[in-house]
């Protein structure tokens, strides 16, 4: 079903999809979550290493997918570990994808409800979001990729603009000393930092859509380096302005950074709404791609048309999104998703890759 040329995407489109998937809810809370663990200003090193780990994980995923050209994970998983286990694994990953999309939607609703649309009910924010996302993914991977290509440059320009405007309240002393208390505190933050780079798992499906699947490794490396730069920059600016002690108490430190300065004389004095705009676009892209991944998974698992699954997932996503009772529950859900992801996409692809390699060798010895 994905062999038609209409459903192919270029390498640069794949990079954009990957970047837009990775950049999401994490950027608003990453400074706090990682500082809580590290407790020294070395957080940015943790984030950097987290990105490198995500790259390694991404490359393994790509290598796995490249063994089965033109096939998505849902299709080749059963080939590797058999029908039942493979089907089960695919189902788990489908669940993962729609849970993450529900999580993103809810985070979006919480933040916009708090900062922009006070008084608007949560369903009033979530439903239009779901419908627009639904409208986008009904067209398949190509419209999604093109939509992301529009979002991507806007994000970069506004993000860099807003970040550098906060230089006025930046103090380098807040970031010193580097590795003052040794390497150990910094290592504690790596897990948290790595979780901010959730996203390379989309390569399990994306490689099958690529026009040039052999360039997939490059796609992963570039696709993760861009968010890596974003994240390191964010962490450096936020800690530089608010200091380590100030960051841990703020719920949304990155937004607070943007709210902490006013620039008179420009057309706008305040820039947090600009940040919120790009951030909502990023959430939207993460939401749509995971939603699509879940629907595609179900369609390929049951070998049916994708449309009924797209329809069917909307209420499920809505219910999961409304499930966390308060913001702490929501953060907890985010943590759980992260822990599941570490196993699903850190360990599992490696196992599958070695199994498929072993099998491949067996086949070769048999045929020879």
């Amino acid at each position, binding site marked *: 079903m994905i062999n038609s040329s209409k459903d192919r995407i270029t390498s640069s489109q794949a990079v954009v999809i990957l970047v837009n998937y990775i950049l999401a809810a994490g950027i608003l809370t990453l400074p706090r979550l990682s500082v809580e663990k590290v407790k*020294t200003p070395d957080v940015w090193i943790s984030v950097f290493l987290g990105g490198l780990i995500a790259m390694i994980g991404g490359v393994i995923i790509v290598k796995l997918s490249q063994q089965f050209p033109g096939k998505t994970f849902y299709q080749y998983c059963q080939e590797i570990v058999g029908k039942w286990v493979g089907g089960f694994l695919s189902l788990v990953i489908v669940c993962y994808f729609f849970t993450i999309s529900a999580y993103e939607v809810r985070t979006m609703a919480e933040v916009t409800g*708090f*900062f922009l*649309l*006070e*008084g*608007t009910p949560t369903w*009033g924010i979530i439903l239009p979001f779901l419908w627009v996302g639904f409208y986008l993914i009904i067209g398949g991977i190509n419209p999604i990729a093109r939509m992301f290509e529009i979002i991507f440059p806007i994000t970069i320009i506004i993000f860099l603009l807003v970040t550098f405007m906060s230089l006025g*309240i930046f103090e380098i*002393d*807040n970031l*010193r*000393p580097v590795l*003052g*208390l040794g390497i150990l505190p910094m290592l504690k933050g790596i897990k948290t930092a790595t979780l901010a780079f959730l996203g390379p798992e989309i390569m399990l499906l994306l490689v099958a859509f690529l026009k040039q699947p052999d360039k997939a490794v490059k796609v992963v490396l570039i696709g993760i380096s861009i968010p890596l730069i974003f994240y390191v920059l964010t962490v450096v600016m936020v800690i530089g*302005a*608010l*200091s*380590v*002690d*100030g*960051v*841990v*108490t*703020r719920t949304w430190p990155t937004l*607070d*950074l943007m*709210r*902490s*300065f*006013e620039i008179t004389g420009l057309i706008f004095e*305040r820039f947090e709404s600009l940040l919120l705009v790009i951030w909502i676009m990023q959430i939207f892209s993460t939401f749509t791609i995971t939603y699509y991944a879940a629907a595609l998974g179900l369609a390929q698992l049951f070998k049916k048309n994708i449309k009924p699954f797209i329809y069917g997932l909307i209420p499920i996503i809505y219910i999961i999104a409304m499930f966390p009772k308060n913001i702490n529950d929501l953060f907890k859900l985010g943590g759980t998703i992260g822990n599941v992801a570490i196993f699903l996409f850190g360990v599992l692809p490696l196992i599958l890759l070695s199994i498929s390699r072993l099998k491949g060798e067996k086949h070769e010895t048999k045929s020879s």
Partner: protein
Amino acid sequence: MKLSHHNVRFFLVSLIFLILLPLSGCWSSKEIESLGLVAGTAMDLEKGGGVGGEGELEQEDRYLFIITNQFVTSETTGNGTKGGGSQQKAYKNVSETGDAILPTLRNMILRIDKRAFAEHSKVIVIGEDLARTLNLQQILDFYLREMEMRPSGFILIAKNRASITLESKEPKVIPAYQLVEIIQGHKRTTKISPPMILAKLEGKLHSGSSFLLQNVISENGKNKFAGAAVIEGKTKKLLGFLNEEELQGLTWITGKGKGGLVESFDEETAQPVIYEVLKMKSKIIPYVDGDSISFNIKIESEGRIAENWVVSEEAFKNEFLKRAEKAAEKKVESLVKNVLEKIQQEYKVDVSGFGNKLRIEYPYVWEKVKKDWDQTFSKVPIKYEVKLTIKDYGTVGN
């Protein structure tokens, strides 16, 4: 069949028009005319035996606040700009008493016809009594938590009552905004401490280190910045004040000043020579030897002679410049010495970032001493050197 097609089209077209209707509105819109923009807030401690009376005996350990919000509404701005014959002010202050911030603010609803809107609140002034008796973290908790209040707002401490700093006799002035304008002056004098915004305050409070807040004093209905308030890190309460001279010394220690003057006197003629700071740099170098900690401050500055009363001397001569440099250096040294004595011996708190430097240079030592740093600091030997260089002397040579 055809009819239903028409029906669908009619339905869709009418939908377009229906969508147009809510387009202009917003779910939670607020009309600007009905808003009371909060320009600034003042917080004071209610002096005992006040108006309320009721329940005072049972609640002796509870403190009461007086919160004064400065409102700028569509009507008051009209008053301000018209000027003319009316003696009305450009602002409206509303005070309310209560024992926690938010309930007090909500009680203001009973007094004002506008919806209070704090997105444009620029400054919070805390009265001396309040800051001395209560923990700043608790006082400001609401303001740090509330999302309508921007973390870019400034914090000031008022000598005496905070509420009178939000009053002005001049008709067109909005005192809260005036305070913010005065804060901007820190670029041109060493007598204003670097502005403290809510966002940075939170880090300071949380880290437990002592720090300074700008102090404002109201004299005859006019505000004046007079030195700084010392906040102790452990108790998060106001400990005392530094006067302008002492604040100047402190600015030289931290090197955070962006400009300012040194008023020195020529040795031979006893006439004033004014040195204007163009560049200021200071380096606090910690030394750790076993258990003993000491500091060395290196202050360097470049500047010009901005005013010279010594008529007989020509600035073209290098000897005179050298003499003027020496005199200015002496002045700065005495300023530094003065303030170090005050903070080390009288207040016993580190408000000038010595601890921070120690944290950066000797993180492990800092981990050991940070708990009782203010105590340790009060006994630490500090040496200082001042080096001023006069680059030029303006447009007059002799």
